């Protein structure tokens, strides 16, 4: 869990780090903390997983991954966890989750993201998943993204 100072640090950094030589000192000054305190708290949040990582967040279209497919699968409930683990470990899959179905509109309970420079490349990655699922798969679809409407990341209240 986080306290008020951690929260203030999140609010101060969620839009990005200052692009100055001493960014943590700049944040410290802004919040009235010492730079050591800022760095110590960021390290703690990194260790506890509140911060997943620190670095560049690319717009994947702009770096050539123009085809982004959300592959979705209707997998037998008793097999979905074991198969999900195997699909998640495929190099071609960047995110893999079990989620609830929303019947009748949405029969799919396993979501796996694949990326490629073309839709063919995504479709080939989906075929790899299909082969792995075998008879446990009762239906599937690929939802390609055609536009990023928003990508701001987390924004908690200030």
């Amino acid at each position, binding site marked *: *869990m*986080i306290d008020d100072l*951690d*929260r203030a640090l999140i609010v101060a*950094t*969620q*839009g*990005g*780090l200052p*692009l100055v*030589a*001493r*960014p*943590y*000192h700049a944040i410290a000054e802004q919040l009235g903390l010492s730079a050591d305190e800022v760095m110590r708290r*960021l390290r703690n*949040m990194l260790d506890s*997983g*509140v*911060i*997943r*990582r*620190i*670095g*560049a*967040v*690319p*717009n994947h279209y*702009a*770096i*050539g*991954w123009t085809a982004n497919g959300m592959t979705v699968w209707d997998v037998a409930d008793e097999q979905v*966890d074991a198969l999900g*683990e195997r699909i998640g*470990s495929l190099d071609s899959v*960047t*995110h*893999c*989750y*079990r*989620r609830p179905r*929303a019947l009748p*509109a*949405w029969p799919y309970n396993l*979501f796996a993201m694949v990326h490629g420079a073309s839709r063919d490349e995504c479709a080939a990655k989906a075929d790899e998943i299909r082969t792995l699922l075998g008879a446990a798969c009762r239906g599937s*679809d690929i*939802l*390609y*993204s*055609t536009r*990023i*409407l*928003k*990508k*701001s*990341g*987390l*924004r*908690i*209240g200030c």
Partner: protein
Amino acid sequence: MRELSAVDRKILAKLQGEFPICERPYAEAAEQLGIAEDELLERIEALLADKVLTRFGPMFQVERMGGAFVLAALAVPEARYEEVTALVNALPQVAHNYRREHTLNMWFVLATETRAGIAEAIACLEAVTALPVYAFPKEREFFVEMKLEARR
């Protein structure tokens, strides 16, 4: 889309995580890339300005701070797509939003500081859009790694 230089590619390949926490982190990262601190700062600034990067900084896992992160979707009538996009994007709880090809044609992630915030955000979206929100909370996460190298 702008062309990426060899140095830009290197920044994208090496700096998607593990940015140091120290007094001069850009200097330290620049040294590993074999460039000067000033050049790294200028290049990150340019990559952000050209929208090759959407952000440079910490990525948070809201669940680890007591909050929630939920994928949700809407089936938006084509005639209302721009209007509904504006309504959905206006909500600060919407962390990202993608148009996808399906009857459910708008997929977004809600990130809220408390678990109760998700239901509030969904109720708010349903009220302003007059459309039902389909929520797909994760029941299990099998793998998450999102470090894509530049392809171009």
